[in-house]
């Protein structure tokens, strides 16, 4: 390491533009490592991470991260067929934002079991189906049965 440090110092003294030869570890160069780290975050932290920079935002769009987030507490793990279904319906990230996060926010205890998951999936599926009506819906905005999830929660 000390050799490297000497070479670093030399190089920084001499040729500052050849930074890429300096063996600093930048997470931004290793997207797969970044993905692995992000997969272990909880919801709010993940959302914060996705706001750090464009690169992280793009990496955070990786659906497997959100899949991990959705199913972390569910056991046994849902089958692989679920993945194809959810991807077809719009992906885990949308599922999380549209259904899972609002549902979790409103349920009194943060129990995340298969029942809640099944419920969120049903809502998600209905939402997808309503998207199919875009353009055919009386000229107004497409119907959104998930609107009730977006409204502020009356916590009395």
């Amino acid at each position, binding site marked *: 390491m000390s050799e490297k440090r000497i070479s670093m110092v030399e190089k920084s003294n001499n040729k500052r533009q050849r930074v890429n030869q300096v063996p600093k570890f930048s997470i931004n160069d290793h997207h797969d490592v970044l993905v692995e780290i992000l997969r272990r975050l909880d919801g709010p932290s993940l959302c914060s991470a996705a706001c750090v920079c464009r690169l992280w935002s793009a990496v955070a769009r990786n659906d497997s991260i959100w899949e991990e987030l959705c199913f972390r507490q569910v056991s046994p793990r849902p089958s692989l067929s679920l993945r194809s279904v959810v991807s077809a319906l719009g992906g885990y990230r949308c599922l999380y934002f549209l259904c899972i996060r609002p549902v979790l926010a409103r349920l009194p205890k943060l129990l995340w079991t298969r029942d809640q998951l099944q419920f969120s999936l049903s809502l998600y599926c209905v939402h997808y189906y309503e998207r199919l009506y875009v353009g055919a819906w009386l000229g107004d905005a497409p119907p959104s049965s998930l*609107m009730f999830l977006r409204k502020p929660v009356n916590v009395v």
Partner: protein
Amino acid sequence: MKRDLHQFQGRLSNHNHGTSSSSSSLPISKDKMMMVKKEEDGGNMDDELLAVLGYKVRSSEMAEVALKLEQLETMMGNVQEDGLSHLATDTVHYNPSELYSWLDNMLSELNPPPPGSHGLDPILPPPVAGDSSTITSIGGFPASDYDLKVIPGNAIYHQNQFPAIDSSSSSNNQNKRLKSCSSPDSMVTSTSTATQIGGVIGTTVTTTTTTTAAESTRSVILVDSQENGVRLVHALMACAEAIQQNNLTLAEALVKQIGCLAVSQAGAMRKVATYFAEALARRIYRLSPPQNQIDHSLSDTLQMHFYETCPYLKFAHFTANQAILEAFEGKKRVHVIDFSMNQGLQWPALMQALALREGGPPTFRLTGIGPPAPDNSDHLHDVGCKLAQLAEVIHVEFEYRGFVANSLADLDASMLELRPSETEAVAVNSVFELHKLLGRPGGIEKVLGVVKQIKPVIFTVVEQESNHNGPVFLDRFTESLHYYSTLFDSLEGVPSSQDKVMSEVYLGKQICNLVACEGPDRVERHETLSQWGNRFGSSGFAPANLGSNAFKQASMLLSVYNSGQGYRVEENNGCLMLGWHTRPLITTSAWKLSAAAH
């Protein structure tokens, strides 16, 4: 205090800029200023100005007084724009203790409104002038029978053409109602500029405005809404009773009063009262609403909005789907026959659940039955295409057939292309459709016979939980008034939006059909679970318990809806009821063929 004064002055000056020129506005504002200045003196002394007139108003309450005056002025300003300016220029004071006898006189001298000044409501055509003699017959009835007694000192009636009061109301609600009453000349007291105060004040002071001479019309303002809420309900009941006794002239007069009273309310009560009043008016004047089948595309749209605004339809779909899902366990080929296809909103969730069940999805076949579309477009086919699209996305083999039928009783089992029950498990689903058959003799029996021929593994039924099919009109009216009041109450928590308005229109159409129609036209013949249970039991069906999963889904749904405040899920003999507070509103039940029927 000081700050109130400034705000008040600010409001006054804005207001003065806004109103059309009227000689009365300036003196009134000066009077208000004077009154407010007095407010700064002793807080609890009776206001001197009003004390002259015999009112005991504490100076400390004057801010509220002034606010109400302002409101009145705005309303008077509206009146002025309608060309009834004479109503605003002369103000008269009445001693509140004399109000009771005044109102008595007023009721006994009701006159029909002058022809030109009617509201634009086609539902209530102006009565013929010759009716004046019949309307006065109200005076012959003791006030207590119809509870039209005024509570002394509190009530003020305002006759006015209110333009859209509640901007979120549907166009149906914007009926302009005009009530006119004659002024008993014995009650006119002197007017003076100093006392030109039109005002409405809580429970202590009451004033009325009226014309001096020719027009014999009176305008009054209803303010104390709690009293008037009770009065409104009594008026509605009285009107229904009058209709029951075939006393249409009395009913007509009461309907107009309901219109005035309804306007004074706010929120759910007003909407319910307006819809019921309209329906009662339709019944009285024999104006039937347009035929159901012409409106079907509209009712589909309205039902879609209703789906989005409140959890009732979602509850129905989720619980029925859960029952069907459990009944289909282990079956490789499944067939659902849906009596209530509409937009097919129930089926995506079931298809997704089937796609993800253990063992993989079955082959899913759906037969949708619906009424014909008005423009002959194959709307059932479109729905089928969308469902097919979804099915492809989630990898479920899907087959669809749409049937157009004017009524479910037109169906035969042979049309449905049923396959042998060893290969295919069938479920029949009906959401809010079966009650429509009760108007036709033999209708429901035929349909239940067809269902038995189908031999479903499960028959899911969702219906409104109320008895709106009794033989006596008054009973039906009372029941439906309570039912829809509760339903509208539950909608109050929803933020105003187009969806909410459309949902209210959706419910309003049901109210209209229920109250105004008779015979085969009256399709909204709701019945309670016990009534349906008897019917199904005697037709050869046995109840199938809905199970705890359905209950869990329903509970989750409700806890997500506005934190579930107010909504309650109850289990009742294996059926699930969704209600608002203590009143169950809709019921999901599941039935299977009883052993004896096999």
